[in-house]
């Protein structure tokens, strides 16, 4: 039996998404063309835009389709930075939480190295929540100089949900971007109600296809584009619209919206079952991050005295997929910057694995995991102690 516990990396496409994709991929027409075929595809794209807007609590004109979550985050960060710096040359400060995804961290680092940005990181607590007092202090001291604030809606490695409405209140008229890739479709997410200026959502995390995402950007607010050539999406993002992927993304988002609450309850129970089952066999496991409020399906666990890539290898050999966090370009697993930001030691960060559950997972799969975990942990401990 193969057990896939890496749904936060990517999750199977839902049936409605597969049907929509296979249907649309057979339709001829570039949505920007003016003839019958073009208009016909355009109609499907606009229906999809409306469906995604409904699911995300945004208005259709606030949905800008992109090619990936990484692209959406780059567009928001660089777009706001250049736009606001262009308006006022002293506005070169970017404020981000210390445990953002690399799709935020890396463009910010790039702007720091190449474009004169000054970056301030908001510390996060041991429980995995951004420190609002620290943010208040940062904003008070730098208000006039801040180009953009970015805080993720929920953390991809530990699942904790962030107090975005409080961040928005502190920010005042400073733009706030939130990376909601992990939250959208899994927990309540309403773009308008949150009050953020922009948000990233992605297709393949909600049962849609790879290669499509969106930047939700409040009406009337523009950012400096990164891609030029055609101006398809509000003149903010150029490139032929990927109609089959967009239509399929919308089908997945709608399906997610319909079943969200039932799935939330199922996944939360399953996560608790996983934590209880593993703790029963390996009692010194530590659960990282508050489990409420959080994404229902993420369990980030430290297995003291092990090296997580050893655990991953042994579990993989048993047919069980888990995740160690990010790897560098050479493929070398690195200690999670998220866990380090929360104050875990490098040793503990290197001993942590993420299990992320999806609706296809069952208790039987978790039973399989519990049946092998103690021998896996024992071998991983031996491997570390010999170093």
């Amino acid at each position, binding site marked *: 039996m193969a057990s896939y516990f890496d749904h936060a990396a990517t999750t199977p496409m839902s049936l409605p998404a597969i049907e929509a994709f296979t249907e649309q991929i057979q339709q001829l027409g570039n949505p920007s063309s003016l003839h019958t075929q073009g208009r016909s595809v355009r109609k499907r794209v606009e229906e999809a835009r409306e469906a995604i807007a409904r699911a995300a609590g945004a208005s259709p004109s606030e949905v800008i389709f992109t090619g990936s979550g990484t692209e959406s985050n780059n567009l928001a960060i660089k777009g706001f930075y250049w736009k606001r710096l262009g308006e006022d040359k002293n506005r070169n400060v970017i404020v981000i939480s210390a445990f953002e995804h690399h799709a935020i961290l890396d463009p910010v680092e790039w702007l720091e190295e190449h474009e004169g940005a000054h970056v301030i990181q908001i510390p996060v607590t041991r429980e995995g929540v951004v420190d609002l007092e620290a943010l208040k202090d940062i904003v008070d001291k730098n208000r006039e100089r801040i180009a953009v604030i970015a805080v993720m809606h929920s953390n991809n490695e530990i699942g904790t949900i962030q107090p975005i409405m409080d961040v928005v209140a502190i920010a005042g008229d400073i733009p706030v971007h939130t990376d909601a890739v992990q939250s959208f479709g899994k927990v309540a997410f309403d773009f308008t109600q949150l009050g953020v200026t922009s948000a990233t959502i992605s297709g393949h995390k909600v049962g849609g296809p790879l290669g499509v995402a969106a930047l939700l950007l409040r009406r009337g607010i523009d950012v400096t584009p990164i891609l030029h050539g055609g101006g398809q999406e509000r003149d903010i993002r150029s490139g032929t619209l990927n109609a089959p992927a967009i239509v399929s993304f919308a089908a997945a988002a709608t399906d997610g919206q319909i079943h969200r609450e039932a799935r939330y309850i199922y996944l939360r129970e399953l996560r608790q079952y996983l934590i209880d089952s593993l703790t029963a066999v390996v009692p010194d496991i530590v659960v990282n991050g508050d489990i409420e409020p959080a994404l229902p399906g993420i369990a980030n666990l430290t297995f003291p005295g092990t090296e997580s890539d050893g655990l991953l*290898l*042994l579990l993989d050999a048993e047919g069980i997929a888990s995740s160690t966090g990010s790897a560098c370009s*050479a493929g070398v697993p690195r200690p999670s910057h998220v866990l380090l930001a929360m104050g875990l030691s490098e040793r503990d960060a290197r001993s942590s694995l993420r299990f992320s559950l999806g609706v296809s997972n069952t208790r039987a799969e978790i039973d399989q995991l519990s049946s092998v975990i103690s021998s896996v942990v024992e071998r991983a401990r031996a*491997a570390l102690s010999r*170093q």
Partner: protein
Amino acid sequence: MKIIAAMSGGVDSAVAAARAVDAGDEVIGVHLALSSNPQKYRSGARGCCTIEDSHDARRAADVIGIPFYIWDMAEEFHEGVVENFLEEYAAGRTPNPCLRCNEKIKFAAVLDRAKALGFDAVATGHYAQMRQTPLGRTMHRAEDPLKDQSYVLAVLNKSQLDGAIFPLGDTHKEEVRREAKRRGLYVANKPDSHDICFVPSGNNAGWLHDRLGTEAGPIVDEAGTKLGEHQGAYTYTIGQRRGLNLTVPAAGGVPRYVLKIEPLTNTVVVGLKESLAVSEIEGEKAIWCGPVPQAGQEHRGYAQIRAHGEALACTYSTDGMQIRVLLDQPLLGLATGQGLVIYDEDRVVGSATVSATK
């Protein structure tokens, strides 16, 4: 058996992994990340452990159909191999980092980890043969004399060798390339790597210079008379003739060679070719690849002091810790720090680090 195949991204380790699978073993491919700051591309035959190499290793594992992971050994490699390389040079010795890497990384850190995780052995693409003989499981030279790597494996002790598998020892390199092609491995024509992998420029002296700094010192003859000046004694090797920039000409214009490097006084000693001759070698920190030769007795065998050097007929004796070698014919130029490997015909007896010569 459950085996870890160490895959560098080159043709040899790819074919070795494939052969281990053919032998019916359960094989997992592992690429060792040895640099914490890897280069993107390999340039010619120089360097290894680039991102391109790790990609090549991954693709080879895909073709063979085995799981593949990357193990981070950068810290161990830096401490155990790179730092040691610098220390040895700074102490006036000439180390061989490949020996050190086999001893401390591939068949120590990797093998230990593999065993702890439940694997039985590590397979590599080295050219050497393990054979079952009346003396036990012993290591022998490879079938292909041009590729024989038993010299750089002679630093492995009996228990390390018991966890080592060399599937290519009975095959010539050209046949390995043909086999890679037959198996659809696109690394079949990838150039062999040479030189020192962590010195990607190939310029050892420049690399050492950047790290050990420049400290001028005297170049003297055997009587101690100053003949010139150098910019760092470690950039010289024993037996070197060119690039000495001596300001005092030799009597009769005979060429002079580096005889000795004295790190404490930062002095390079030069002299005539005859003074380079070595007929007695002492080695310390002996490692035995098979049974330990009887102490207090003289044995006949062959000594080798370079990776692809000649096998020199000799008589040797040992107390188990040190090896003393009397060469039948003197050799020219041998530096302390070099690896001394003893062979009994084609069987590797053991090795030691050259500590003194006469």
